[in-house]
Every structure is written in C-alpha cells, then in structure tokens.
C-alpha cells in the first residue's frame, strides 16, 4: 500500500488530500490555517487525516507541500534583514527599475520598494564584459570588508550577490560567495547567476534579493516541518510545490524559495489540466474564485501555458507593473480582483462597480452579521436566492439576508435609483463580466482561442458564477470537479517532480553546429538532472524538454521554439530554422527567409515521471441520501425574475445522474448555479459536467 499526501496552505484554511495509489481513492481534510506558525496546521491536519483514514505515516511515500509563506513574507515585508553586494556604479539599479509608469493618468503613482534598502547595498570593484570575459578582477578584499561591515553594523542575516553580466559568467559572483561563506558560515547567501542566469540586471537582481530575503525563514520552516515529519516516522520524500507547476526537493526549495511564490494557485491550474484530460477536454480555462480574488489560467493539451515573469507584492491593487518584477518559471495566470467579498459601490462614472476592494474576512460581507455595512457579491448572491442563508458552509454559518438587503439599498440601489433585485443581479452580472473580460484580454495577449475550450470552475465562489461567465465566452461546457474546495491540495498529487531553468547566451545560428548546440544545453541539463536526483529521480527517468528563445538578428523580440525531443544531432540542427520560422509566423504572420537568426535564451526543463494516478481516481464516493432538497426562489435573468428553482444535494448524485437547469446544486463549500436548459451530468469520478444550452 502506498499513500501520498498533498498539503496546500491558504489564507483561511490549510487543505489536505490523501491518495491511495492502489485504488485512486482520495480522502480530503481541512483545518484552520495557523498564521503564526503555518507548520502547526500542517502537522495537525496530517495527523488527523491519517488517524481518520486509519493509516500509519510509514505508509506515506511522499508529502507534497504548497505554501504561501514566501508570498506573504514579501507582501508583508517580513523577510530577513538582507544585504546586497553589487558591481560598483550599480547599486541603484533595483530602485531605478524599468523607468516606466504603469498608469499614466495617476499623478500619485507608487512603486514597489525593493526588499533591500539602499543603505544595505554595497558596491565592490570587479567587472565582467558582456561576453563574460574579465575586464577588472574582483576585489575580494572589498567583498569581505563590506560584508564584515554589513554583518557587524547592520546585522544582516542574508546576502544577495549581484554583479553585472553574471548571466554570461557567474565566476565573480561565485568567488565572492565562496569567500563570504568561508568567513561568515551563518549567513544565507545567494548569487543572481545561480537564481536564474537571465540577461537584464534589474529583474535578475530583484529576483536574487527576494530569494535571499526569504531564505532564512523558508529554511527554518521547511527544516522544522521535515524533522517533525521524521519524528513521526515519515521516511518518504518531502517535496515542495513551485510556481511552475512542478515539485522540488525540500533542499532545492530552501535554496530557491523565490520559486515557491504563487505555488498554491499553480497546483489548482495543474489539477484542472489533469481533470480536463480525464474528461476528454484537454484545452481549458481554469477558473478559481475565492473570497477576494479570482485566478485564471489557459491550458493547451492539459498543460497550463507558462512564462518566465511574475510580479509580486503589487502596491496598487491588481495593476500590472506595480509590483516587484521577478524572473522565474511560472504558470501564466491572471489574477482578478473579484470574489465573494468584493465590494459593490457607485464608481466615478455614476455606475455600479464591483471590486477590486474586498470586505475581507473581517468584517466580511454584510450578511455575515459581523458589522459589515457595505454590500458584497456574496450579499447579492444571497438576495438573488443563489446561496441558501441556512446552508452556508454546509450550515455551519447562518447568513443575514436582511442585512445584505439593507447594505445594497443604501450603497447602490438607492443612490442609482435601481430596484433592489435589479441592483443585486447587476452586481452578480458585473462580476461575471469582469471575469470574462479578464479571460478575453489574457487570451488575446497570448493569441489563445478559447471558444472550443471547456472551463474548470472551483473555489468557494467559482461555481455560482461559472455558467454565466462561460456563456459570455461562448464556451460549450463547464466542469465542476469533485473536491472543488481542495483542488490545490489534490493538484499536488498529480504534480511531477521537475526543474526548469534558462540562461542567456546570444549566439548566431550560423555559428552553431550540433556539437555546439549540445554543449550549450548540457550544463543546464546536468543541473536539472542533479536537482532531480536530489529528489530521488534517476537520470533515466528524466524527460528533458529543450526550448530556445530566438529572433532575427537586429530585432528586439524573441519567439519561443520548442525542440522536438525525438530529434538530435545534425537532424535537429537542420530543423531549427524551419521551427523558428513556423513559431515566428504564428505570431507575426510572415517570415524573412534570408535574414540571419540568433538564439538568445536557452531553456531546459527536466521532468520526473508523472505520478501514476489510478484511472479509478475519485474524491467523492457514493454517499446516498436524498437528491432533491426542495425548491428555492432564485433570480433567473433569462426568465425575467424570481422563479422556483430546484435545489440538489450534490453528495447524493451518482455517476450517470443528470440534472437539467434551472437548478442549484449545493455542496458544503459552494453552490453551482445551472441556468435554464443547461444540462449537468455526473461523470464516473463524480465530477459534474455541464453542457450549456445555446
């Protein structure tokens, strides 16, 4: 018997999923997050879940863990006191940033502050040229005296070593790291060329400083968790989820904590892909909506689209460009300021606006009865009859519909002379429109055609909004997964161990041959393989994906070319120009047959074997009970008002059952709203697949 556990720490709850690999059965669990020390909830939940399922921890072969620890530390500025060693003349690079305003109309624009203050950045002599050759030797004497000073005067705990052109040659950074490590073994150190050898000093150094800043706490946290698990008798692999949708060994996570940012949502998107493939719908929109935000991702062939950019700690709610710019491999996700707690109000145009401000958990929506006086999207969903005030969180919390009505009247309906029902539906629909817009815009940025895709909808607020959003996008069907409340935790269980990296080397294609091509890739492949080995994956189990960022010489923009795994040597070399032209013309609808080409970035992804999840995978089992819970008056826009609407107990539905809308299908954490004529069917894994009536 072999079990695996996935753990995802969220803002309110820490979620758990335990899979029995012999039969694919998944058991789930939730406990309250313990913000002061998140590992408490993790250990408590694992203990409870294993006790409930009557399994000893010795049967568990791996624990995959996703955490918001790093994200929160950067947002709340709770990382370590961090210093920076930087090439003389460049200490202000992380302040000067991109010299760009993210909003040209806001005269009081704020920018994200670097995590290392100017005072703690120290310049040293030593310079490499753009080709990596040495122009001036590194002054180790200055390195040591500056670090001594930072250590003694400023009590730094971590140090980022960031030199010019280190993407081309990391040896100055490495020499500085060695010297400092010898003298100050207690300091946490990281070099920008090790974190990601990418050309562009501002982003690379920002990434390195955030990495150093979060290293001490990540190290302590994962160390504690690992030793506590061992104390309980756990002997399996302890893995940590990264933002790119792969898991890494705890050792690697401690070396690159910056890669853990946004790992929970990444696991959710990955789970969407897994479910979509099982359901025969590999091209997908993953839609996850909670209390304050919604997250979206686009998936092709079950794989989420990726990129090498991530913004963290935005100082302006949801404004792209207002955060710290990181370069790490990530799943490309959109974040929308829309959720159950989103506030409805009158905007500057005199129209209804929903979000991005949120009532948060305290006071929360007006209907929570905790003193909130402003109407939220959840308040409106109660007024519209979509949510049952007596069955919120499975009946654990009673909602006050009258308070919701009052808040909506005073803040929106009355000032805009709207009937209450109209205002409530307006808020619901505006939120739907905002989400649909974000998907449309994201898809057109990426040139992604979503019209034949399915949507996977989850999160506490996703299912009540998904159908109307899907209709706006002309999407044919929506999948409401079983276990929607713990999607990210389950997602950890389908995640392979993987490591992805890149480096910048601008090389003319004409100067390359098969041997040189391999020589450029080899160090990256070796690195990825070595890291995977740490996580217990043998080299022959590793699948290597090679990609190139290429362009025509003289152009300022690259396109990504994926090299087919089955090609190698001269055959591969000969195929590259055509692969590039194909990728190029997909973006630009043309090519320049005679123009010289060059490679800019070299990318490698090493992927371990995908966890084999039994085809009989299922989260929910037969529970029995009454399917019908009666009817409730719900607002159906297409029918022009409130109508009796069938209420269904999701847990009582069996594979093959169908429900035709209008219907409200309730589970503890959420309610699916199915419109008139839409037809839901329960698949063998207890997922609800709803086909829209057009």
């Amino acid at each position, binding site marked *: 018997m072999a079990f695996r556990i996935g753990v995802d720490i969220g803002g309110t709850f820490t979620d758990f999923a335990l899979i029995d690999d012999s039969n694919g059965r998944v058991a789930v669990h939730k406990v309250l997050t313990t913000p002061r020390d998140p590992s408490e909830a993790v250990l408590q939940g694992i203990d409870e879940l294993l006790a409930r399922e009557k399994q000893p921890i010795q049967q568990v072969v791996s624990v995959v863990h996703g955490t918001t620890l790093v994200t929160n530390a950067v947002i709340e500025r709770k990382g370590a006191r961090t210093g920076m060693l930087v090439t003389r003349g460049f200490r202000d690079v992380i302040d000067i940033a991109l010299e760009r305003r993210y909003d040209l109309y806001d005269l009081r624009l704020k920018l994200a502050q670097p995590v290392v203050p100017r005072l703690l950045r120290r310049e040293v002599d030593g310079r490499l040229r753009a080709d990596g050759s040495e122009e001036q030797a590194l002054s180790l004497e200055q390195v040591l005296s500056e670090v001594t000073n930072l250590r003694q005067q400023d009590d730094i705990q971590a140090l980022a070593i960031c030199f010019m052109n280190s993407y081309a040659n990391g040896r100055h950074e490495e020499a500085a790291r060695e010297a400092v490590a010898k003298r100050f073994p207690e300091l946490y150190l990281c070099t920008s060329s090790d974190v990601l050898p990418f050309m562009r000093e501002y982003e690379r150094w920002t990434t390195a400083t955030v990495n150093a800043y979060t290293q001490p706490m990540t190290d302590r946290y994962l160390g504690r968790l690992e030793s506590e698990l061992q104390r309980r008798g756990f002997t399996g692999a302890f893995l940590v989820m990264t933002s790119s949708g792969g898991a890494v060994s705890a050792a690697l996570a401690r070396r690159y904590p910056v890669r853990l940012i946004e790992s929970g949502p990444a696991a959710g998107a990955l789970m969407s892909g897994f479910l979509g493939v099982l359901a025969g719908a590999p091209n997908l929109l993953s839609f996850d909506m909670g209390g304050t935000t919604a997250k979206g991702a686009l998936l092709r062939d079950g794989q989420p689209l990726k990129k090498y950019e991530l913004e963290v700690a935005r100082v302006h709610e949801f404004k792209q460009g207002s955060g710290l710019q990181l370069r790490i491999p990530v799943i490309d996700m959109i974040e929308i300021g829309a959720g159950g707690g989103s506030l409805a109000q009158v905007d500057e145009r005199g*129209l209804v606006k929903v979000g991005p401000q949120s009532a948060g958990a305290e006071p929360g929506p007006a209907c929570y009865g905790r003193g909130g006086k402003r109407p939220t999207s959840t308040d409106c969903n109660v007024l519209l009859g979509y949510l049952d005030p007596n069955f919120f969180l499975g009946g654990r919390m009673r909602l006050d519909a009258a308070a919701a009505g009052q808040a909506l009247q005073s803040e929106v309906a009355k000032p805009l002379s709207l009937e209450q029902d109209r205002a409530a539906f307006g808020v619901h629909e505006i939120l739907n429109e905002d989400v649909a817009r974000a998907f449309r815009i994201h898809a057109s940025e990426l040139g992604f055609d979503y019209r034949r895709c399915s949507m996977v909808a989850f999160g506490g607020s996703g299912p009540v909004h998904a159908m109307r959003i899907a209709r706006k996008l002309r999407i044919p069907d929506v999948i409401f997964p079983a276990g929607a409340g713990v999607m990210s935790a389950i997602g950890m269980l389908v995640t392979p161990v993987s490591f992805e990296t890149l480096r910048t080397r601008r090389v003319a294609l004409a100067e390359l041959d098969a041997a040189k091509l391999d020589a450029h890739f080899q160090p990256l492949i070796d690195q990825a393989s070595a890291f995977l080995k740490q996580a217990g994956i043998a080299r022959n189990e590793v699948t290597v994906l090679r990609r190139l960022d290429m362009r025509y010489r003289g152009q300022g923009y690259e396109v990504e070319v994926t090299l087919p795994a089955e090609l190698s040597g001269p055959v591969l070399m000969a195929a590259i120009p055509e692969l590039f032209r194909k990728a190029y013309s997909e973006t630009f609808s043309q090519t320049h047959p005679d123009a010289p080409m060059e490679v800019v970035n070299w990318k490698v992804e090493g992927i371990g074997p995908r966890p084999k999840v039994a085809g009989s995978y299922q989260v929910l089992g037969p529970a029995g009970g009454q399917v019908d819970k009666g009817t409730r008056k719900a607002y159906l826009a297409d029918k022009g008002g409130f109508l009796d609407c069938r209420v269904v107990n999701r847990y009582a539905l069996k594979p093959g059952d169908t429900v035709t809308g209008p219907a409200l299908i309730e589970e503890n954490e959420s309610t699916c709203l199915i419109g008139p004529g839409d037809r839901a069917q329960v698949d063998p894994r207890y997922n609800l697949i709803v086909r829209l009536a057009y």
Partner: protein
Amino acid sequence: MQEFDAVSLKIMWDRLVSIADEIVLSLVRTSFSINVREGYDLTCVLFDARGRTLAQGTYSVPSFCGTAPQTLQHMLRRYPAETLRPGDVVMTNDPWMGTGHLYDINVMRPVFRGDKLVGFTMSVTHLPDIGGVGFSATPVEVYAEGFRMPVVKLMHAGKLNEELLELFRFNVRVPDENVGDLMANVTCNEVGGRALLDFMDEYGIDDLSPLSDAIQEQSARAMREELLKIPNGVYKNAVDIEGIDEPIRLAATVKVNDGRVAIDFEGTSGPVRGAINVPICYTRAFSYYVVKCLTIPTLPNNEGAVRAIDVTAPQNCVLNCEPPWPTGGRHAVGHFVVPLLMGAFAQAVPERVITEPAMMTVFSVQGKNREGHDISSLFFLAGGFGAAKGTDGLSVTPAPSNMTVVPSEVWENLTGIVVERREMLADSGGPGEFRGGVGQEVVFRNDTGHLLTVGFVGQRTQFPARGLFGGQWGAKRTYFVNGKPVHPKGRHVLQPGDRFSTHEAGAGGYGDPLKRPLERVLADCREGLVTVEGAKRDYGVQVDARSGGGQRIATAAQ
C-alpha cells in the same frame, strides 16, 4: 433617447472598452515597432455609425486622447459614409489629420451588418520607420521627414490597393516590417468589427447610437460634476523651453466657468526651423490629458468626456503649426503642455497638481559594435517625476508619457558600449516640503573599438523644472564627454575608450523646504538622496553625518 440603467450601461460600456482593449493587445503582440511593443504607442477606437466614440482602448499614451474622432471626420470628408462599402479600409499618416507626426498610421474600417453601416473601428500605431531622414530634429519641412499619405483607401471592398502598398514599400527602410504592421492594423480592425457585430447580436442591438449617446451623456455628466469643483477664474502660466536656435515660450490661459474649461495658448512662440513643431491635435490631446488627470483619471475617452473643454491656439504658433512645418519630434515641445497647464491649474486646485517633471533624454549612437556590425540605436533616460501635496516625486521616472528603457546588460551586449555607472543623483530633486524626484547619472564608455557618434536630444539643460508654492527648482540636465560638459544639442565623435555621460535633471519641489519634516530630511540623507551640505543649504537642517541625527537651524516664516 433610449434609457440604460446603471447596470446595463456599465456592462455594455465596459464590454465595448474590452473589445478595444483586446484589439490593442493583439496589435502589441504582433507589432514590429519597439515603441508599440514596449511603450504602448498605439490605440484603438470603436465608433457608432455617426462617427461618435463608443470606446477607446484603456492602454495608450496621452497623445491619443481625443484625436481619433477628429481623424475619422477627416476620413469621412474624403470618403463620405454613404460611399463606403464592406471591406473598405481607409488610412492616413498626415500629422494634421492624424496624431501629430508621420510615424503614426491611422487605419479605419467601416463595420457593416448586412449592407447597413453600423459603426467604424480605427487603430493607430507607431510604425517602425517612415522613410525620410529618420528620427531627427533636423528637417525644416515635413517633406524631408518621410512618406506622407493623405486620406487614402488601402482596400477597396476587400481588395488590396497593391499600387499604394508598392509605393509605400518603396519609401521606407524596413518595408517588410512596415507592411507587417500595416496589415496587422487591417486585421485587427476586421477582428474588432466582428467583435462589435457579436456584441450587437448578443445584446439584440440594431443601432449603436442610443448606446453611444448614453455613454457620452454619462461621461459628460461625470466630468461636469468634477469640473464644477474647480473654482471659477482665469489662470495663466508660461514656461520657457530650449528651442532650435533660441528659447521657445509656451503660454496658456485657462478659464474655468461653471464647469466649462477654456484653454487658450495665446502668447506662445511661433513655429521653429526644426522638427519639434506641434500640430493642434497633439496640443489638444495633452490638454485633455491634463484635465483628465486632475479630475477623473479613469474616465474612458470619448467626446462626452471632453465636451466641456475647449482648446484653442493662435494660428501657426509652435503649438498649432501648419503644413509644411516639420513635426517628427513634436513631443519635445508638446510634452510641455502638461507642466504648462499644471502650473495654471495649480492656482485653482493646488492640492491636485504635480510640479514640473524633469522629462527625459533621447540620445542616438551610430557606429559599429565589437562584432563589426553597424549599430544605430536610440537610448532613453528619465529624470525625476513631479512632487504633489503629500507625495515626493518618484525618482528616475519618465513624464508625461512613457518610454522604452534598455537594460544596461542588453545595451552592452548589443552595442559594445559599456555602462560604467547608473546612479541616482543626490541633491538633484527640487527641494520642497515634498521633494521633487531625483535624476540620475549615467556614464558610458566607447568599448566598441571603433569611432562612435553620439547625439543628445533633451530639455532642461537651460531651463530647470520649477517648483510650486515655495518649492525649488530641480537640478538641470547636463551632458559630458570625457568628463567635460558639452553643448546639449551637439553631435560628438568618440574615439575608442572615450566616455560620455549625462546628469539627468530633477523635478521641482512642492511647498517650502523649510517645512519638510526633520525626519524626512534625515531619512533622505541616510539614503543618500540629499547630501549633508544639501540638507543645510536647502532644508536648514544640520546633519551629523556620523550618527545620522540632526536638527533644524532655519525655520519657515510663519
């Protein structure tokens, strides 16, 4: 007029904006122009059948505020609406009918539902090249600046005007990329038109005009409410800026009267013999931009939003030049409309305005890189951003538009010119209760092994950014070759190993520097943005460099 409530108007309006945004983003993704890709130097607008704005893309630079409706009117004068057929595509890059210089191509496509004209879509993008002398201030007539097209049809009923395209290709340096961008405009308008038709189907709308009326009305009402908060009065301001041979004076009178704003540029200098003249469309765009920033920054652009704003300028002044004055670098003068009007509005709404920003430098380099390939590149650098009541100016941030910055490592890799230093300049921010943003020092070394020609274009070398309400000037901009200050407009030939550098200017301060809280002055000193001498001289604060403490030795007059 058909009624739309606050819900349906919101949903339909935002949906239209989102259609425009989608077109903008697909153009950005496929564009060859670096200005478009990195600087969002483009826009897209949807119109109803009468040529009135429904929506404009959210992301675009200020120079496109309110220009497209005028451009469309020029197009419809040449090709009246009733003569247009499905599949027609009309375009122009005329600076006076379009957006102020030849680089911007305006491409319009009528939208038909069956055979009924229901609207128009238009996109505007900055082309990679337009022929002529290239990006330069030297032309004295527009004819030298490149290929100028009146309102012409690129497509007749879906059929490409091959001869026109051939002519266009023949007149530009990178024809493939230019035609690529031109056709991307054509495609995106087609996509936009389809999206507009889908929108009409989805909402069961036969005629977009009632919706555009409602959008314009709602915008006008929202704007009027805000404008009524600005006290009535006549507010004047003038700024002097560097010209071609002698300084240029820009002058403005802003009359605010019960929610109406009249802006006139009487007193502004005449056109100049260099490509920095500004057509009125551009002056108007930046005037609208200022009012928008001061009132409702998030209000979508349309005629309703600017209905209460009149912009006039004397005939043939530098802010209202006529053909054939050259306009390629119209931003060099036109951007100053922003500080000019901010200074006037400062008298009316002191708590809303920002001080004069330091603007930016554009410099060009020509030579060979280390590999022996020709290089010819533009490099942008920003000075400090203006301060406002309650807010220090941002350091090293461009204004009033955005720019494309090249990272030092990318620059070194492509050109072989080494960047030796990039540092914020202490004491360059204008002292004030709220300090102006600081500029930067950047030092380059010609490591190419070849001769290198460098030319600078930047303002504030003679006229610094001024402060407001007792706030002081920011530091001026200075260019150096081998450490010696050089003429700011010159071109310089550098030997291998020579250095050139710039001190980017600082922005003006806001309010009396002696009122700046002591702890803020000390914090600036600790961070190195103000020196110990600067603290004493500008803020009346004696700082103990060793402890970082200090005390006030001069206080503000009460």
